[in-house]
């Protein structure tokens, strides 16, 4: 059973000419224990998708389920933790008090809430400010507290919207480590983030939303792998004079310094090019699939939607 399952989800805000199609037939599955990153431009529908999953926003069509339960049921949210992007805590409460409130709303007893609150505030580095009113917290402290409230009832599915927003680099590294630790414990994490590097570092799979549609989806490895392109190093290095003959065998052959970039439509063409080079005395010293950065993948996806 998938941890998160979305089918044909549609949501339109407003009416008439000013209507915005926030979600336009989204299908999505996230396996238990997976860290799934959702990327997209501002207004692409990322937050709307999460809000529909949490029943904060009601979909016009389609279905969404968490651990097999329809997201329209309040019980579906029992195993769910959520850190919204622009969250606002009750400023009259202390960090400890806020966790007590959210723990209670999640069904924890006052004693359990306090115990978990103490542990989590320690974990997110807020133990020293536990009894301080939230109105005195910095943005980074509120973000850490946000993460703690999402975890207070030990959820098995976690939705995080920009979890490292406003957090310093050291804090970001700590949060990343925390998320990886949660994944190791079997927690499913659904991450909305603009920080592509961060997503690339911790996500198992990524979806890219553009204008309410899922334009790319897959594992980081498969998304960043360039379209059948390789970097080849040989000894001696390939001479530029051989490039016209190589181009007759593969779709692309370019020389970058000492490295030869080859692109081939199938493995047989690549093998033919390698045989050609071996026949001319070049020994193979390295062959690596050429990769794109996630940023490149993202930019290509939003500029040329599938």
């Amino acid at each position, binding site marked *: 059973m998938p941890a998160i399952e979305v089918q044909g989800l549609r949501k339109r805000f407003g009416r008439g000419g000013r209507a915005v199609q926030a979600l336009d037939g989204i299908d999505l599955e996230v396996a238990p224990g997976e860290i799934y990153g959702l990327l997209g431009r501002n207004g692409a529908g990322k937050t709307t998708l999460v809000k529909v999953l949490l029943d904060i926003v009601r979909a016009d069509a389609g279905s969404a389920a968490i651990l097999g339960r329809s997201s329209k049921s*309040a019980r579906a949210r029992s195993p769910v*933790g959520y850190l*919204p992007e622009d969250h606002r*805590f*009750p400023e009259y409460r202390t960090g400890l008090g806020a966790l007590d409130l959210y723990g*209670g*709303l999640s069904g924890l007893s*006052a004693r359990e809430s306090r115990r978990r609150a103490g542990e989590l505030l320690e974990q997110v580095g807020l133990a020293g400010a536990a009894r301080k009113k939230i109105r005195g917290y910095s943005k980074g402290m509120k973000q850490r507290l946000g993460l703690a409230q999402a975890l207070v009832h030990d959820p098995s599915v976690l939705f995080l919207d920009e979890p490292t927003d406003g957090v310093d680099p050291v804090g970001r590294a700590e949060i990343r480590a925390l998320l990886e630790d949660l994944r190791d414990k079997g927690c499913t994490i659904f991450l909305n983030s603009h920080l592509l590097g961060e997503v690339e570092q911790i996500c198992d799979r990524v979806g890219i939303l553009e204008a309410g549609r899922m334009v790319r989806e897959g594992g980081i490895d498969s998304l960043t792998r360039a379209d059948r392109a390789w970097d080849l190093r040989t000894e001696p290095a390939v001479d530029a004079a051989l490039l016209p003959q190589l181009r007759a065998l593969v779709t692309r052959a370019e020389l970058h310094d000492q490295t030869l970039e080859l692109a081939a439509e199938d493995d047989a063409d690549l093998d033919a090019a390698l045989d050609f080079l071996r026949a001319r005395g070049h020994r193979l010293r390295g062959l690596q699939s050429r990769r794109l950065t996630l940023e490149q993948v993202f930019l290509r996806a939003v500029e040329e939607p599938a």
Partner: protein
Amino acid sequence: MRPFLAMLRDSFRESIDRRALFVLLAVSCLATLFCFSIAFEKEAPELVLRRQARRLDTIRHGNSLVHFDGSMPLEFDVVRVAPVSADAPAPPGHAAAELLVELEFAHEHELNAMVHSWAAFLEGYPDDLSRYDAPVGEAARRGYLRERFEGFGYADVGVVEGVLRAKAAEDARAYRVFVAGAESYRVAGAHRLSIGFGTLAVGLEGTSVQEVVFTIQKVLAEAIAGFVGLLIVLSTSASFIPAMLQKGALDLMLARPVSRTRLLLYKYAGSVSFVAVLAVLLFSGCSLGLAVSTGFFNPWFLACALTLVAVFAILYAVAVPLGVLTRSGNMATLGALGVWGLESTVSQLRASDDVLPAWLRAGLEGLHTLLPKLSDLTGLNERFLARTPLADEAAARVIAEPADLDWLFILSTTGAFTLLMLGGAVWLFRRRDW
């Protein structure tokens, strides 16, 4: 239950964070302190009795004493006030008598005028003027005197007629009245009232300790708690729901495994519970203060807390849908205060004797049916407090005759209004995207 308790704790925290709460607590503490600071100092019984006897030709009108005929004092003397003695023994059957007052009326008609006016006062001053000229028998005169002295708070009143002076006019009448046996707090004017732990002392005129306590309780229930307190608590708490619905704050709540209906109703119940705690604090503190300082305890005073909480719950139910609709604390507050003011105006206009156009009266009746019956509910305070054992005469003066109300209509329409408001709020809250 756990989510409800969490919301309840949060409502308390939210209330504590507002400065208005400290104003409310200060009001409660001041009111309680005021009640503790009251003291009644007994006056000499002879002095009290003389003062009371001199007021036989007056009736309390509002807060002042007026003469029976509207202008001139009647002609009578208080000849002597003294303990019962051998030369003036108590009449048979009045062995407990302690004091005797001797009264002399210069003319019979003076006493008759008193008897008529007293009857007219008790009957609400009927327009039939001819009755004032009706002859008065001796039994009626004696009955009048007995009734007046009983009204002053004496439990055992005996009246003996007798000519006290030799050279009196032919139609003069003289009486000896023996009084005794009342609990001291029921004797009107038998005390001096001191406030602020003796800072200010006031001589009581024509009023008993119990009446003073009744008045203080009424002011506390209707003016301090029922108006000032309600105004502050409503202005403060009306913004609680809009605050919960602020962008970023609500997401944190809605992501929990609690339905929207329960979330909203828990928040509502949390605020009402908080007001209930404040009300219990105020009324029990004042009740204790009055009990300690006056020795008088009316358990029905505590029931006024229920009225306060009920009125708040109804008005807060108006603030909830407005808060959900506009997310504005100011709009929610204004809406609740608006309904309060409108109902009060409608209620007063309906009760007035002014001749109103038919269309206006029909409109008022329509509004009265739709609106919650806050004035009628507040009127319950007087009914609760009226259960105090006041002397009949004092009760006639200070307790308004309860109106004959259709409580089934009042409770059903008020309940329907409240449910409609809350139901509307829940409906809005459930159907909106947040």
